[in-house]
């Protein structure tokens, strides 16, 4: 059973189509980076998956049940974009309150709150009021809130906004840790490097439509650029390389070949060596996600 399953999900606000016919499915322990420009429909999608927004058409299932069903929400964690809070609560009080909403018993709450404050680096601020917190600290406490119940699935909407590079790194490590423990993560982001570092699956949404979905390798590895460094590259050898893909010279003794299929690389290496070239390096370079993303954004609708 998929942890997250969306079938032909759509949301229309008056004349605006926020999300159009979205279908995707995520298994246990998978981390999906949901990429898109601002206003592409990322937050609306997350809200439909959480039962905050009612879809105009289609349906969603979380752990096999409709979104918002209390039976399932006890196993869900959520950090909203622009996370807000009751500013008069202390950090520990805030987490305790949300623990109560998760129906955690008092003793378990106390233990878990202390543990999470430690984990997000706010143990020494447990008694401080949230109103005195910086944006980055609020983001951390929000993240702790999303993990209180040891969820099976976590939705993070732009979790690193407001965080400094160190904080971003910590969030990334945390996502890695969640994945290792089998937690499914749905990560909304427009930070490509973040998605590249933290996610194994990517969906790219553009004007409400999912235009690409797959594993990071599938999406960015479809065309692999291979950097070749070798001595004794004769024009004949170079011409022969075009059997594998488009060849572009790159300085003395170097060139790049764009191959359609990585599986053909050993064959290409053998060709080079047998042809008499002195092969120093043959390094496949994954198409950076950024390039793919920009390319997709430029495509016509």
């Amino acid at each position, binding site marked *: 059973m998929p942890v997250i399953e969306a079938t032909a999900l759509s949301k229309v606000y008056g004349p605006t189509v926020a999300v159009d016919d979205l279908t995707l499915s995520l298994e246990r322990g998978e981390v999906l980076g949901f990429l898109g420009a601002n206003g592409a429909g990322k937050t609306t999608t997350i809200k439909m998956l959480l039962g905050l*927004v009612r879809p105009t058409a289609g349906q969603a299932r979380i752990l096999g049940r409709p979104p918002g069903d209390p039976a399932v*929400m006890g196993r869900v964690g*959520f950090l*909203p974009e622009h*996370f807000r809070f*009751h500013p*008069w609560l202390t950090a520990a009080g805030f987490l305790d309150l*949300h623990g109560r*909403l998760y129906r955690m018993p008092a003793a378990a709450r106390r233990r878990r709150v202390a543990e999470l404050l430690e984990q997000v680096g706010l143990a020494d601020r447990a008694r401080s009021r949230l109103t005195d917190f910086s944006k980055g600290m609020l983001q951390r406490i929000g993240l702790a809130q999303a993990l209180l119940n040891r969820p099976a699935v976590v939705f993070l909407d732009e979790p690193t906004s407001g965080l400094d590079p160190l904080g971003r790194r910590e969030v990334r490590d945390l996502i890695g840790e969640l994945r290792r423990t089998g937690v499914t993560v749905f990560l909304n982001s427009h930070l490509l490097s973040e998605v590249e570092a933290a996610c194994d699956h990517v969906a790219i949404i553009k004007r409400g439509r999912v235009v690409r979905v797959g594993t990071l390798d599938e999406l960015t590895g479809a065309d692999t650029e291979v950097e070749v460094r070798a001595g004794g590259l004769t024009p004949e050898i170079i011409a022969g390389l075009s059997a594998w893909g488009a060849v572009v010279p790159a300085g003395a003794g170097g060139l790049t070949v764009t191959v359609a299929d990585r599986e053909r690389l050993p064959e290409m290496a053998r060709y080079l060596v047998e042809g008499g070239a002195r092969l120093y390096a043959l390094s496949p370079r994954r198409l950076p996600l950024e390039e793919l993303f920009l390319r997709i954004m430029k495509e016509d609708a």
Partner: protein
Amino acid sequence: MNVLTIAHLTFLEARQRKLFWIILVIGLLALGLFALGFHFTYRDIQASSTNVQLIASQFSNLLLLMGLYGVSSLAVMLGVLVSVDTISGEIASGTIQTIVTKPLRRWEIVVGKWLGLALMLTAFILAMGSGFVLVVYAQVGYLPPHIIPGFGLMVLEGLVFLTLSILGGTRLPPLGNGVVVFMLYGVSFVGGWIEQVGSLLRNEAAVNIGIATSLLLPGEAMWRRASYLMQSAVLRDLGVNPFVTTSPPSPAMVGYTVGYIAVALAAAVYLFSKRDL
């Protein structure tokens, strides 16, 4: 249990607001002024009147009802102002999002908020009302009749406007909601008056207008019944004044008001459940 958690949170939150304390201070100020004013006027009556006992009780009753009228107005004010943005404000600020996505039903949020504020409002009315009654009792030894049902009706009036303001907050922004609810309060007040004057002049059309307003908005009618119950028999025969009444709404009206609150709360639950957040 979720309802109680939300009620607790709402109660804590209301207590955090300056508004709550301002209204409490105004209430205490009014109580203090009332105590002083009552003390001095009562002293004059004692000095000038021959039949002190009878005059004192009538006088106490009238002044006390004026004081309690003040409490009931402050209670409406408090009920509306603390609840006017309890839902729309949380939607606008986004705090509602981490709450709605917890394992609870949306109705539990609405009912929990209502319960938290209703308890606070009830405590305010009972504390302030008792304060006024005690001020008089301490000086004259006078207690008005039917205090308990009277206070209950005052609470009911506060709850009508509290519930309407929570209902409005599921769809309207705070300012618009506040304006609407206070305008309704005004309408209900005027409607009550038209009914009273109508009954005094035996004008059936005016009475019907009043009744129609009361059915639409039963709040003010609860105060009129409360003041009718708590006034002395002599005052009742004296005629119309803003604080007491000669034509009290019936017990059926009380039942109607309870039903009205329940329906308004159910409507709030329905509207909030259907809303995209």
